């Protein structure tokens, strides 16, 4: 990585900058945990039905940034949030926000695939069940649809009753994606979803992201700059909790405006 030249970005589809309305917007967001400020004054628009990559060195606040969207960052700790995080213009930190509904609309994939120690079927049915689906036919349908969308159906259709823990790492991550898709989200957050996967599994997830872009707004945190270049339309570079630069991915990887961005993507630090 250190010696590699600039990463070749995917060919630009269209200039995204002004083409797509913001699905998620950060307006001067500062986010602190007890004794540590993770984000300071981040302003960022995440366009609808596009893939936005968040890159930056470890500890720069990438994870906090996406976990502040579905308000997972605040679980089990006290946090202070300033500024506004909005989805479709609605502030997710406004009093009276229904967290259950928020998290149904904003699904998330984690760094480590985290299937529940239940059967494959029950994993995918988990979301629909807690959101009120109970008719067996509906569940079956939702499970099949989601597994197909996550390109896992053909591999598991004959063993839906076996434990999810028996799947390989890559399959587990696709199962988690199916689990997210089953609740019909609008935004999908991914926190380094391929960091524990082999190259082939990674490629499959990336293919899926490619397909997801048509229906969902995807925000992916990644350590892997090639990945950011391959899968995203927009790329945001975060450093020490501050947004350094955000632009179309092609621009970021070819003609970054900020010296620090260039240093980072050419591997001079990070």
């Amino acid at each position, binding site marked *: 990585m250190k010696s590699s030249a600039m990463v070749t970005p995917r060919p630009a589809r269209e200039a995204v900058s002004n083409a797509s309305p913001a699905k998620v917007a950060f307006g001067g967001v500062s986010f602190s945990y007890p004794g540590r400020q993770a984000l300071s004054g981040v302003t960022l628009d995440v366009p609808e039905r596009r893939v936005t990559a968040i890159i930056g060195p470890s500890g720069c606040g990438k994870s906090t940034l996406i976990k502040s969207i579905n308000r997972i960052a605040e679980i089990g700790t006290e946090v202070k949030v300033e500024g506004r995080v909005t989805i479709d213009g609605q502030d997710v930190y406004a009093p009276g926000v229904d967290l259950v509904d928020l998290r149904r609309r904003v699904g998330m994939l*984690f760094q480590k695939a985290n299937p529940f*120690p239940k059967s494959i079927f029950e994993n995918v049915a988990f979301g629909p069940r807690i959101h009120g689906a109970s008719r067996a036919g509906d569940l079956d349908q939702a499970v099949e649809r989601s597994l197909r969308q996550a390109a896992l159906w053909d591999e598991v259709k004959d063993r839906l009753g076996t434990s999810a823990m028996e799947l390989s790492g890559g399959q587990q991550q696709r199962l988690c994606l199916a689990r997210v898709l089953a*609740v019909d989200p609008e935004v999908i957050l991914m926190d380094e979803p391929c960091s524990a996967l082999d190259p082939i599994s990674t490629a499959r997830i990336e293919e899926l992201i490619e397909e997801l872009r048509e229906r969902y707004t995807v925000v992916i945190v990644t350590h892997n700059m090639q990945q950011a270049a391959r899968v995203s339309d927009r790329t945001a570079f975060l450093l020490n909790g501050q947004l350094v630069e955000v632009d179309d991915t092609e621009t970021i990887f070819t003609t970054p405006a900020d010296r620090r961005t260039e240093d980072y993507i050419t591997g001079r630090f990070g």
Partner: protein
Amino acid sequence: MDSRIESKIGKAGTVPVVPGAVRRLRRGRWREVFIETFLRLNGFIAIAAILLIFIFLFKEGIQAFRTIPAGHFLQSQELDFDNVPQTVRLWQPVGQNPKYSLIPLLLGSFLVALPGTLIATIFGVACGIYLAEIAGKRTREVIKPAIELLAGVPSVVIGFFCLATLATFVQDALGTTFRLNAMVGALGVSLVIVPVIATMTDDALRAVPGYLREGAHALGANRWETITRVVVPAGASGLVAAILLGMGRALGETMIVLMATGNAAQVTLNPFDSVRTMTATIAAELGAVPQGGEQYRALFLVGSLLFVMTFLINLVAELAVARMRRRLAL
């Protein structure tokens, strides 16, 4: 491998070393070998102790069969006043025709241990879930030591409390015929095993990886749904282990049951009857019988049986914990 390293160091010149360093290294190595051996021995002592207890118990217990026919441990014949033989199931080791039926003792033990475990499970599991999943850090820091303190109360004190206070309360509240009965013992025993179950439930649930909770929350599950549908099922084997270990403790508890259950060895399934447990029988009688006699050996047989039962329960509990670790791929 160790010796190879040493020989290399020993042959001066193979490895460039400062004079004196070799000696220091050797001395350090000996110290390490000594500490390691000492610790290993301690580990084996535990196993040796269990084996020795096992051998000792069985050596005595098995001899009971030399003078008492095996069937008599279930039931024996007795002539009634009309000289008609009657089948009786009694533990009456003293007298002209001693009877050694283990049935009243087994029933007594289970009439205390099962309700005791049930009561302790309800409170212990609830308490463990609260500690692991709901209590804040500060609350936890107060409650956890308090529970451990309860575990440290001498069982004779709890027995005394059951005998003097709880028994009256139970009788007033439920109108039981016998003031001291299995249920009073069960309540007392549950006091002792609630801490066991609560602490182990807490441990089991805290061993459930945080990313499972995060995953559930991210799908929109609220705290209750996360606990009941993800965390508790994931830690279920650990909970089973907690309950089984509690039950093992309940079966083995002696002082409380000796004081609180009324000590009447009878064949009953009514938890409000006076009963006599296996442990209480051993504790009450062993000190007063001649060593090596028939009753002495019969009591050792009771002890052996108790040992086997608790051993099996603990074994299943260990297997449950191992299963949970495997399932969660910890």
